């Protein structure tokens, strides 16, 4: 059953990812990105990381929405009512993609965390909470600090543009 689910979601991720790159319609691309990210949440559920799956849905649903809102507001609309994107910087784009692919390949090759290690964990939320406040406290606090900086920056920019 898990295998079937895995291949199903894998196929979904693969297809939606590919179409999202090659479609010219920006809105389709955004919705396909949502589908892609939700399929990844499906993967998490299969490997028993339900908390992570929920967080994935919670964060990316809102994230995609903001993306679409900006996509609508900042791009030109053709007379048929479609937002069309073109292809530019093909060389550098493929270079970055290749670099990322190599990086991910290296990371996956050297990583020791596999699905089988996670699969029998219960009481995840509790465990995650305890680990965040003991083992990973520095990273946790740094991320919190970073978000605070972002928040202050955003409100500063917002205020400045209001007076201009």
């Amino acid at each position, binding site marked *: 059953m898990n295998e079937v689910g895995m291949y199903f979601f894998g196929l979904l991720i693969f297809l939606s990812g590919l179409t999202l790159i090659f479609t010219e319609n920006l809105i389709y691309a955004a919705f396909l990105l*949502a589908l892609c990210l939700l399929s990844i949440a499906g993967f998490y559920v299969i490997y028993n990381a*339900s*908390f992570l799956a*929920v967080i994935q*849905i*919670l964060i990316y649903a809102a994230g*995609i929405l903001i993306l*679409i809102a900006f996509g609508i507001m900042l791009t030109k609309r053709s007379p048929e009512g*479609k937002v069309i994107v073109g292809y530019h910087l093909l060389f550098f784009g493929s270079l970055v993609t290749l670099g990322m692919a190599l990086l991910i390949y290296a990371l996956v090759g050297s990583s020791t965390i596999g699905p089988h290690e996670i699969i029998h964990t219960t009481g995840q939320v509790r465990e995650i909470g305890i680990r965040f406040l003991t083992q990973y406290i520095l990273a946790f606090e740094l991320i919190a600090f970073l978000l605070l900086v972002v928040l202050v920056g955003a409100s500063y920019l917002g205020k400045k543009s209001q007076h201009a």
Partner: protein
Amino acid sequence: MHTFLFYLPFLLFFVLVAVYGERKIAAFIQSRFGPMDVGPKGIFQTLADLLKMIQKEDIVPNAADKPIFLLGPILFFTVIFAGFSMLPLNSNMAGAAIESGVLLLMAVVSLDVLGILMAGWGSNNKFSLFGAVRAIAQIVSFEIPLGLSVLCVVMICQSMDLQEITRQQGLYTTDPIFLFGLKGMGIEVTQMGGLLSWNVVKSPLLLFSFLIFFIAGLAEANRAPFDLPESESELVGGYHTEYSGFRWGIFMLAEYGIMLLISFLAVILFFGGWNTPFFNMGSFQWAHWTMGSYWEVFWLLFKTYILVFVQMWIRWTYPRLRVDQLMTLSWKYLTPFGLLLVFLCGIWKLMML
């Protein structure tokens, strides 16, 4: 039996009743009679409306973005109905056993904007698009106070499982419950159950959390006074302007569905879920007398219906907010108060330990 099998027919039935109820309540608030013609006191009005709606043509505008236009309402309803799978029904029927059930419900509630946006964008109509963009701004902003008020409850209960949260608010609890949660006072009410072990009484600060939750919930459900995405006087019909027939019906279904979902969630988080309000006093074992499979279902639905009624009451009492007032309410009032409440609830939890 899985609770899912109960909630689908229940939702359909609820919408039939609620549409009629809403029209009657609106009429009584405005000193009118409301629907009176179809059946005695007009009780078959919604059935007649339903028949009319099903017979209508399913129109897809020529200039619409067809796949998105057709998928929008389906996604909207599916996502909201998925939320019902987490709800418990009574002490034996728990719904989907998800450790982080509350969080998933929040995720589901925020996902429904994707459906709204699909509808608004796909219609290729500026009123629809305005409605959809307003819906995004509104729902994404009100997600934060909603999340903060839920966080207060999660901190008090130390669980995100809806069934576990409910169980802690009644006779089936495994931990001792003290009056107002204050262990220092030493008045134990574990055996009394009822009202005294509900979250709002166990930790009175949650009453304020509930207010924030309810206001944010109204905004999430696009209900008046926050019905900006579909305000008739400004945007024709908002994001569902271009829809007709049964597709429009699905929007209605989903809207009443989310109203019900928010009410269920409020009852489970703050007002004891399926627990009885009566408590044991000496030889009068009211709490024991009014608990049992069917009683529990009754209490859950009864409390939910009261909240649904309050939502309708508010809709026909308050005028609609402007967009900037809406944002001010969310960011300048509800969010800071929500943060303050999270802090105070943390202190209260320390006194409960």
